[in-house]
Each structure stands twice: as structure tokens, then as C-alpha cells.
């Protein structure tokens, strides 16, 4: 167990609708997300005295939100980063709260991920200025090897070769996350898909097809973290942070490709620390968010975090195992593949809602925790949601994670 296990809680969550495009500033969206998270928790601007965020040079910063909403912060730091940041900042936040730097802290990401800076690269239509290839990019961009799909595709291809896995296993992940999105009124892509739909979708970069790739959306999403003593007095059932890791690296982290196995990813190095700190095993986990920038990133992290053996993920995901009402439901909101793209915050938000037993689905009483568990009627609540693992991905060589529990666990 960790010294601070269960001592800090996620007490508020909020987000803007996923839009393509938002026609708004990242500041405007972030203010809305923070307001919603405060309202969710039952907090006022004066109660928030810490704020942190991550971005890729594409977003507003904490001081602008504090000014807009009339907060005076005792701590604020905005960092650079993408998909391995949410859980890492949860870790930072616990340390800051414990040390007394502040009392109640906002974590946010705000991005015009579709209409502004696109992680997958801008479409090369019309006159574009020459792309600058500097630093590590000198040895990738001139070979036309730049986007996340192209980078991770290299590791995915070798994985398929080494393990005999086929892309039908990748399809299982796309189908499961889309099924969950069909139960999520907030999701961008809600029509269910089949394995054949995945197999028939166009190639983006072999071995990845369109339905292996996440969406790009304009959105802001926010978490609020405070001590359990404060959490008890707030509006929602508290969700306890049991443990986590922050941007854990594999060796040779800045050049994955000279490692003995390019698909032996960073989660392998964080796994024992994560479960050790939480004081539980993989068998205790009822649901996961497994970072789905691509189907492959979900697949490989199931191995890295020990939910199945090395090389076994392709078999593990078959038969709908990652779908609700099955053994290990994954990305209940639909994830980045089907709900929308937030660089990870939305996956943690969904786990919080699930652990509160308040998934915001079609059940009329969801806000009071009343669910029908009737999937035909649009219920998205996992029946026995007690412990959730959040498995973040930055690259093959960088991963963050957190384990959360609800009050019934």
C-alpha cells in the first residue's frame, strides 16, 4: 500500500460537448469545463486554490481561467504533454495537497484538437509552409514517419509478426468501445460497428485502418481533487485514489526503436508500482480505461499492466471480453476511438462516474444512482463497479496510470 492510498479523492468532473469544430477558444471551453466540475462537486471558485493542466502549445493556461472565474490560486503549473499526462498530474496533485501547497486542485485539458492543432498532423492540402524537422524529428520526418499512427504502427506491425495476432483482435477493441459509445449520449460516434466494418474500413497506415484510429475533437475536460476529509462534505460520493504512476519510462525512452522488443511498452515498468501502491491485484479491477489513441495502444497495455500474459492480448480480447457485462469492460464512455479526444481526461472522468454509480446514460434516475442495467434501453452503468484502473499512454516508452475506487469497494 502507498502512504497516501485513499487519502485523496476525485470529487468533481466536467467537460464541454465534443465538437468538430467548437468555434470557441480553449479558454472559453476550459471555463465551462471547470464550472461544470465545480458544480458537480458542490464547490465555489473560492474553494479552488490550485490548478494544473497539460497541453501541446495549443491551449490556454491556469492564470487565464483563474482570472476569468475569479479565483486566486496558491499553486498553478501548466505542463507540456499529451496522452500520458492525466494520471501523472493526479500524482503531482496528491503530492502538492499532502505538502500543503494548496487544498483543492483542478486538473484540466482544453484543446481544439480537430479545428486547431491536430495531433495526427494537418491535412496537406493547399499551400503549406515547409515543415521544420528538428531534434529527433530530423530522423523521422524526412522519412515520412511522423504521425502517432505512423510511429506506433511500426511497433504494431512487429507485434503482429512476433505474436501471430491478426487485426481481427484490434477490431474487437474498436467494436467494444463503439458499443459503449452507443450507450453514451455525449459520444460523437454512436452507431454500433462490427468486426467486418473494421476490416472493411480504409487503411490509414498499414497495419492500422481508419477504425483503429481515435477521433479528433474540440473539447475541454476537468477533474477536481481534494482530501478525503473535504470530500465527505461534498455533493458526490467520493472516488478514492488508491495509487498510480506518472510518465513511467521504458529504457531508451527517446528512441523506442533500438530496444530489444519495440512493443515491450512502458507499462511493464510501472505495473508493480501501480498495483503495489494500490494494494490490489488485476483480478480486483472491475473496469478499465485503457488509452485508445489506437486500438493497438489498448491491446498492448493489457499485457503491459498484467491483465493477460505477454503475447496473449490478441486472444484475450476475443469474444467481447472488453464489453460491458463481460469480464473486463474497457472505456465505458467509448473512449477516444468513439466518444471523443481529450488526451486522456475523459477516460478518467468516465471511471469516476462509473465508480459513483452515476454514469450519465439514458436511465432517468442516473443522477441519483438509479440504473436499469438494460443495455437495450441505453443503460451504461457497470453493475458492480468498485475498482477502476486508468491506463494512460504517451508513447511506447512512456505511460501513466491510476487506480480508483468508489465508496462501496
Amino acid at each position, binding site marked *: 500500500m502507498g502512504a497516501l492510498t485513499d487519502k485523496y479523492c476525485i470529487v468533481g468532473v466536467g467537460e464541454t460537448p465534443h465538437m468538430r469544430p467548437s468555434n470557441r477558444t480553449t479558454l472559453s471551453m476550459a471555463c465551462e469545463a471547470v464550472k461544470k466540475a465545480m458544480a458537480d462537486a458542490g464547490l465555489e471558485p473560492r474553494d479552488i486554490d490550485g490548478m494544473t493542466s497539460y497541453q501541446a502549445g495549443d491551449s490556454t493556461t491556469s492564470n487565464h481561467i483563474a482570472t476569468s472565474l475569479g479565483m486566486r490560486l496558491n499553486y498553478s503549473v501548466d505542463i507540456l504533454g499529451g496522452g500520458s499526462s492525466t494520471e501523472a498530474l493526479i500524482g503531482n496533485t496528491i503530492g502538492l495537497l499532502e505538502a500543503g501547497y494548496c487544498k483543492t486542485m483542478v486538473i484540466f485539458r482544453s484543446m481544439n484538437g480537430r479545428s486547431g492543432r491536430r495531433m495526427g498532423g494537418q491535412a496537406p492540402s493547399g499551400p503549406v509552409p*515547409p*515543415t521544420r524537422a528538428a*531534434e529527433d524529428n*530530423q530522423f523521422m520526418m*524526412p522519412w*515520412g514517419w511522423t504521425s502517432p499512427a505512423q510511429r506506433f504502427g511500426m511497433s504494431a506491425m512487429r507485434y503482429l509478426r512476433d505474436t501471430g495476432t491478426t487485426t481481427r483482435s484490434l477490431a474487437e477493441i474498436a467494436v467494444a468501445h463503439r458499443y459503449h459509445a452507443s450507450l453514451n449520449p455525449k459520444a460523437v460516434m454512436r452507431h454500433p460497428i462490427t468486426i467486418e466494418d473494421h476490416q472493411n474500413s480504409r487503411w490509414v497506415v*498499414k497495419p492500422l485502418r481508419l477504425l483503429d484510429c481515435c477521433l479528433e475533437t474540440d473539447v475541454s475536460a476537468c477533474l477536481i481533487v481534494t482530501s478525503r476529509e473535504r470530500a465527505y462534505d461534498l455533493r458526490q460520493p467520493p472516488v478514492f485514489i488508491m495509487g498510480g504512476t506518472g510518465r513511467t519510462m521504458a529504457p531508451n525512452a527517446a528512441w523506442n*526503436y533500438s530496444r530489444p522488443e519495440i512493443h515491450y511498452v512502458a507499462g511493464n515498468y510501472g505495473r508493480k508500482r501501480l498495483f503495489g501502491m494500490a494494494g490490489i491485484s488485476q483480478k480486483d479491477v472491475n473496469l478499465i480505461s485503457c488509452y485508445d489513441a489506437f486500438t493497438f495502444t489498448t491491446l498492448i497495455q493489457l499485457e503491459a499492466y498484467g491483465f493477460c500474459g505477454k503475447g496473449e492480448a490478441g486472444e484475450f480480447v476475443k469474444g467481447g471480453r472488453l464489453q460491458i457485462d463481460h469480464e473486463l469492460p474497457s472505456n465505458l464512455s467509448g473512449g477516444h476511438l468513439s466518444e471523443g479526444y481529450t488526451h486522456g481526461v475523459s477516460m478518467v472522468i468516465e471511471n469516476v462516474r462509473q465508480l459513483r454509480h452515476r454514469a450519465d446514460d439514458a436511465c432517468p434516475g442516473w443522477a441519483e444512482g438509479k440504473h436499469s442495467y438494460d443495455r437495450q434501453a441505453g443503460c451504461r452503468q457497470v453493475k458492480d463497479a468498485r475498482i477502476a484502473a486508468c491506463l494512460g499512454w504517451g508513447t511506447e516508452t512512456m505511460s501513466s496510470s491510476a487506480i480508483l475506487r468508489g465508496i462501496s469497494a
Partner: protein
Amino acid sequence: MPGPIDYSKITITPDFDTVEWWMATKEHKYLVRQCKDCGHKWFPPFPACNTCNSMDLGWFETAGTGVLHSYIVVTQPILGAFVEAVPYVVGLIELDDCHEADGSLVRVGGVMLDDEEDVAIGLPVSVEYEQTNEANIVVPRWKISGTAENTWKFNE
């Protein structure tokens, strides 16, 4: 062979750590970093030896041969430079002469001159140099150079 790559749409900016590497490609040499103290080799040319932490570094001129360790086939261009090139294969090449006793090895990327049909993991490859439409920039390309047993191809 993939279509032409318009290198005028990429601005390569060599820096303190990499300028000698780019100068060497103009002389058709494929270099990797080598530690003058312990002999360790690596790439890209990070500025210290991650085995002994020496910063007294030189270069090792490789034979420019290797084995295809993995590859991708890009069908949707992301960069303006590659709009005419698709579909093209990016290879991950494990260099033949950078293996060390402790298992350390060097893999590098590059655009294959071969089409997808002719590429398979496990095949031997060798480097060729392409004078780009930018006078100052020569880029290494890679080409299948023979046959091998136990190769693997993505057949979907």
C-alpha cells in the same frame, strides 16, 4: 517504387548534435555515434554515451546494411512533401555492424525504394543515397538487397 518526395516542403535543421551526420550523408556515409571511451554505438546522436556517460564522442561509419525489423505502409499522406509519394513503405532497419556483446543494437528508419509487395520483415537491406531537390540535402533511402529464410509479410 513510390512516387517523388518533395523535400522543398521539409526544412531539415541540423543542430550541434547532428550537423556532422547530415554532412556525411552528402558523402554517402551512414554514421552512428560512437563513444571514444567505451566503444558503445547509438543513434540518433544523443550527446552523451548512455553506457559510460562519456561526452568524448566520435562517429562510426556503418556499412549501410541491415535487416528489415519492421515496416509501415503509409497510404494517407500527412506531410505536404509526401503527397505524391503514397503509398510508400517506411522501414525500420537493424544495422548489421552495430551489435554489441551486451545485446545493444541500433535500428534506424528510412523510406524504402521498394514497393509494399517486395518488402518483408527479415529481408536484408542496404542504403542508397538520394540527392533531393534541395541542393544541400542528401537523404539515405533503403532497398531490399537479397533474400532470407523465415521472412514475414503483412498480408491483409
